[in-house]
């Protein structure tokens, strides 16, 4: 039962991954629609980042995580290298928690 559930989840996920890719090739997309697709992906990634920043389940995530992400986002905006952004965000959140701020 367990193995079936995992394999079905895997096949379903893979089908959605491959499905989008194949659909893109099959469809004759207008230029306007082609411009829309990366925009849609960016909106999804932004929503993913923002919800993962401020929410933990259906509650607010507290202070440490949003503060860490904010530091990272600020550095990214100042065109800091990706590695710096990621490490600074993690370090900020970790240090705040170490100081008892969650």
């Amino acid at each position, binding site marked *: 039962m367990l193995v079936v559930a995992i394999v079905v989840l895997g096949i379903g996920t893979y089908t959605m991954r491959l499905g989008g890719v194949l659909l893109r090739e099959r469809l004759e997309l207008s230029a306007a629609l082609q411009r829309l697709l*990366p925009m849609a992906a960016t909106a999804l990634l932004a929503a993913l980042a923002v919800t993962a920043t401020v929410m933990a389940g259906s509650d607010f995530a507290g202070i440490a995580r949003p503060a860490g992400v904010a*530091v*990272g986002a600020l550095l990214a905006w100042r065109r800091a290298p990706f590695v710096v952004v990621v490490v600074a965000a993690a370090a900020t959140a970790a240090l705040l928690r170490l100081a008892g701020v969650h």
Partner: protein
Amino acid sequence: MRTIQRTHSADRALLRDAAAIAAAMVAIGASFGAIAIAYGLPTWVPFLMSTVVFAGGAQFLAVGLIAAGNPIAAVFAGLLLNARHIPFGLAVGTTMGTRWRDRIVGSHLMTDEVVAFTLAEKDPARRRRTYWLMGVTLFTSWNLGTALGVLLGGATGDPETLGLDAAFPAGLIALILPSLRDRATRVVALLGSAIAVAATPVLPAGLPVLCALVGLLTLVRFKRREA
């Protein structure tokens, strides 16, 4: 000569980014492996999930529901959470290559981070290299992390102590920031994010993020103003 040097330094930067994200993936993969074992699930469960499903969020959600004795809910919740891969696939398209082998293998490597890295790259040849480099790196590090978590159990520690829960959103923001310079994209992304956050307490996991696509409706207004 200068072009070659520039390419080399861009490649080095890409490898450095890949190494950073791989390190984070090993740590989070380890916590996934450790949690699955702590739930009392058989050892093969985290391994099978990390290779066959290969989607972090869905895997954490699914092991929780399986451990709670509800594998059917695990399947549905996981699929709902992964539905965003359809629009991701539409956006990425043939970046991974047009041969069947490329599409069949490449599609499995598609994750949020791979899509974000790929879309941040404008040159088609570099885009393709980015997709594959990130995809293979993340798949390898995620599975390596899972194995470490299963072996070490609780000794791997909590990723929150390391602040990794802040690292991933920050990384995604850094990657999409250049495309947010375009005003229409920015409006769509901000509105979409606000809708997703507002929907999070009321909708099941996965749906709120998909609701962000509603933000695309603002373009209707934009277009009318342009015309």
